């Protein structure tokens, strides 16, 4: 799969680890920054939206975004119409975010989970398919809500 990935400075190191994991699993990764861990990146919300835009436009199948807690960047990604971002710092949530929510963007908190847990979360997120069924109508409601507020 094509995966767009983005982070702030706090999650830069974790992003490097996740990029390697994804590449080893055979995925094609595009890194939208940050490209250093030394300068506090004030623009990371825009990076989160840029990752979501890649998914929205079909240039990426999945997106992964990270910051200290995962909160700020997940909020920004969810503001992009047509894209649902799930902040998952545990394996159960990662699985359900795909099975039930059909989330195409995963958010992680680099200061919340360690590298190995983060890798397991990413593996589950990449492997798990949407269940469909009763969740299709619920997810369609999200699109309707979005259309009310977005251009």
């Amino acid at each position, binding site marked *: 799969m094509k995966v767009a990935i983005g982070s702030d400075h706090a999650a830069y190191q974790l992003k490097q680890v996740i990029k390697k994991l994804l590449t080893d699993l055979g995925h094609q990764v595009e890194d939208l920054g940050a490209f250093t861990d030394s300068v506090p990146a004030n623009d990371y919300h825009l990076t989160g939206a840029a990752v979501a835009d890649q998914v929205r436009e079909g240039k990426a199948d999945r997106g992964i975004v990270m910051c200290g807690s995962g909160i700020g960047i*997940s909020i920004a990604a969810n503001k992009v119409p047509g894209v649902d971002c799930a902040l998952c710092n545990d394996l159960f949530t990662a699985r*359900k975010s795909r099975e039930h929510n059909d989330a195409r963007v995963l958010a992680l908190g680099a200061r919340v989970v360690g590298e190995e847990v983060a890798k397991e979360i990413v593996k589950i997120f990449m492997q798990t398919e949407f269940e469909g069924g009763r969740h299709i109508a619920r997810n369609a409601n999200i699109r309707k809500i979005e259309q009310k507020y977005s251009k």
Partner: protein
Amino acid sequence: MKIIIGSDQNGFGLKKVLIGHMESKGIEVTDMGVYTEDPVDYPDIAEQLALRIASGEFERGILICGTGVGMAIVANKVPGVRAACAHDVYSAERARKSNDAQVLTLGSLVVGTELAKSLVDAWVASEFAGGRSAPKVEKIKAVDERYRK
């Protein structure tokens, strides 16, 4: 502080526990449902609550579903609303201090009742710190503006 709380059927039991917990601490809580364990579509609850935050009727809101994921996705779709799914105390604090999140979402199938109480306590007690976080929250608002009608 005026807090509004809502859940789907999965979060119904935890919602009752958290309402009791907050009321015991003197917090005024408005329960917008659900009032039974009959299945509902969580996007309806999340949108209704988020609109009441966006309008300024309530300062803070709490949304509960199975994982907290769906509620956070939908609440964040409403312009002006920042919703944080937080299952550890560090994140619950940062949701307020760094992200000025007016909405906390919780997964009743992810956290137990005592941890959920601690998460709510940390989130209620924390305020937006401003400072270097202020321009970042402005960037979220810019993303919101870009797609908003």
